[in-house]
């Protein structure tokens, strides 16, 4: 008996997509052709299943359709000798469908991730391809999430696949040495997806996909495959501990609410619990990495019932560690804020001076924003107002610009 189509069916397709892709890519040794074929199979499912109901074996159905697509394509482009070889392989494929299914290797998702996050790809390509091939999202959904036309996103994905094809990377698990080298890129891509989603989007694109949830879902999948990796645990913890605050981040008019003014009763305690548990597990592995440390900072914030209860000395210590193992202008900035909370705003302002000549601070407006905040704490309203407005003039995020303007306005009126 086939099941009727409903909302959970879309979720089912999303879950199955990367699994099907893994099986087919491995069987036919061709990631790019497999990706195309799987997309067509998914489209066929989207059109047929609502009419005919879900097949009893949806996974098998999709594998069969995708496999047929590939062989059809190959058939039209290869010589007769190879064609015979193919027919033999196809017989192998269609007959023991059960056999093919048990071909399913949970590592396939990991292989997919390594392929989609290949260092040869740009971040935006890797993000798009990951969301498609591993996330199972449609091109339209991804385009909508990034506010570009569907055709643009389709091209981006197509280009990414061509780059992978050109690089000649086989659909195989990289060696453990290569994995150690490439995992950071995978985590970075997932982190970027999370960040992109970490904004309550306003405006006409009301049905934007929740990228933060997608990032968490994908990172959970990675964690299931690599349960003992400290940084994977750290990244998942960081995402959960950050996501926990989302309901409190924006006000009724979509305005941004800073951490120290958020209504903490709106924080998601379940996510905080889980995040903290994961973090503890990660730290117990012995090694300490960038995501684990950032998660630790988030955990310290999240455990404070009120802003004034925040354990700033611990946060300062964590940033000092971060400055050693993963230095960056952003870390220095955050370190200065923590130092200001522990040793006074004057100390923070002093530390910021070291960044004035740092060319790497690509988003210089952040420096002005932090400076403004500290000037306010020191009691220098005039300088605070000035720097808030400079920061407002330089940010390219509208909610952020409004926030910075409001801060200046607030001081100007008092």
């Amino acid at each position, binding site marked *: 008996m086939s099941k009727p189509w409903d909302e959970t069916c879309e979720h089912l397709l999303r879950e199955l997509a990367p699994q099907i892709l893994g099986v087919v890519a491995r069987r036919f040794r061709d990631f790019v052709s497999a990706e195309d074929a799987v997309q067509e199979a998914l489209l066929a499912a989207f059109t047929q299943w609502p009419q005919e109901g879900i097949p009893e074996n949806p996974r098998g159905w999709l594998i069969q359709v995708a496999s047929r697509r590939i062989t059809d394509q190959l058939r039209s482009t290869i010589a007769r000798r190879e064609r015979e070889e193919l027919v033999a392989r196809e017989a192998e494929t269609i007959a023991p469908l059960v056999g093919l299914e048990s071909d399913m290797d949970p590592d396939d998702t990991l292989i997919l991730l390594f392929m989609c996050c290949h260092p040869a790809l740009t971040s935006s390509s890797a993000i798009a391809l990951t969301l498609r091939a591993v996330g199972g999202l449609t091109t339209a959904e991804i385009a909508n999430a990034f506010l570009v036309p569907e*055709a643009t996103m389709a091209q981006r994905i197509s280009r990414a696949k061509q780059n992978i094809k050109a690089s000649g990377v086989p659909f195989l698990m990289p060696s453990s040495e290569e994995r150690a080298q490439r995992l950071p890129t995978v985590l970075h891509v997932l982190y970027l997806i999370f960040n992109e989603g970490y904004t309550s989007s306003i405006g006409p694109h009301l049905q934007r996909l929740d990228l933060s949830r997608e990032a968490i879902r994908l990172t959970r999948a990675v964690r299931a495959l690599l349960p003992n990796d400290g940084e994977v645990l750290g990244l998942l913890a960081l995402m959960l501990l950050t996501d926990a605050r989302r309901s409190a981040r924006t006000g009724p008019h979509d305005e941004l609410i800073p951490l120290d003014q958020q209504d903490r009763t709106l924080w998601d305690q379940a996510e905080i619990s889980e995040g903290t548990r994961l973090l503890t597990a990660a730290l117990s592995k012995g090694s300490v990495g960038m995501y684990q440390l950032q998660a630790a900072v988030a955990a310290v914030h999240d455990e404070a019932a009120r802003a004034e209860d925040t354990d700033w000395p611990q946060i300062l210590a964590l940033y000092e560690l971060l400055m050693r193992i993963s230095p960056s202008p952003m870390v220095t900035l955050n370190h200065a804020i923590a130092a200001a909370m522990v040793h006074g705003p004057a100390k923070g302002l002093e530390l910021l001076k070291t960044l004035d000549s740092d060319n790497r601070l690509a988003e210089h407006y952040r420096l002005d924003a932090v400076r403004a905040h500290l000037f306010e704490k020191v009691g220098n309203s005039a300088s605070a107002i000035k720097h808030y407005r400079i920061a407002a003039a*330089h940010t390219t995020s509208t909610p952020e610009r409004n926030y910075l*303007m409001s801060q200046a306005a607030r001081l100007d009126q008092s």
Partner: protein
Amino acid sequence: MKYILLMSGTKAGVDGYLAWSQKDIDAHMAVLKALNKELTESGEFVATQRLAGPAEAKVVRGEKNGLPVTDGIFPESKEFLLGYWLVDVATPERAYAIAARISTGPGPGGVPTNMPIEVRQVASYDQRKS
């Protein structure tokens, strides 16, 4: 028919805007948001973009070897584009009416800015089909 509605300003104007009070900012944002919602519901909305300020602007020319030459200088009094709306409407009068709505958007103290909005018809040139 596609029209573009252009909102321009000068550096002095933008500096003034950055100094608005909280209340005025909120009121201004609310009006624009309501307009976008209305246009989306009527099916006339195509796109809207806000542009970063002139501090972030660069003027680029191609050098002889094709490499870009950038120049970030923007005279104080020069008018520049702040943002635009792209709408798809039945008549030019409808485009002017929408522009007038934008022009009545509130400024400091809730007084309508009455700023001039430039309205231009867009050449139809669908990029998506290629």
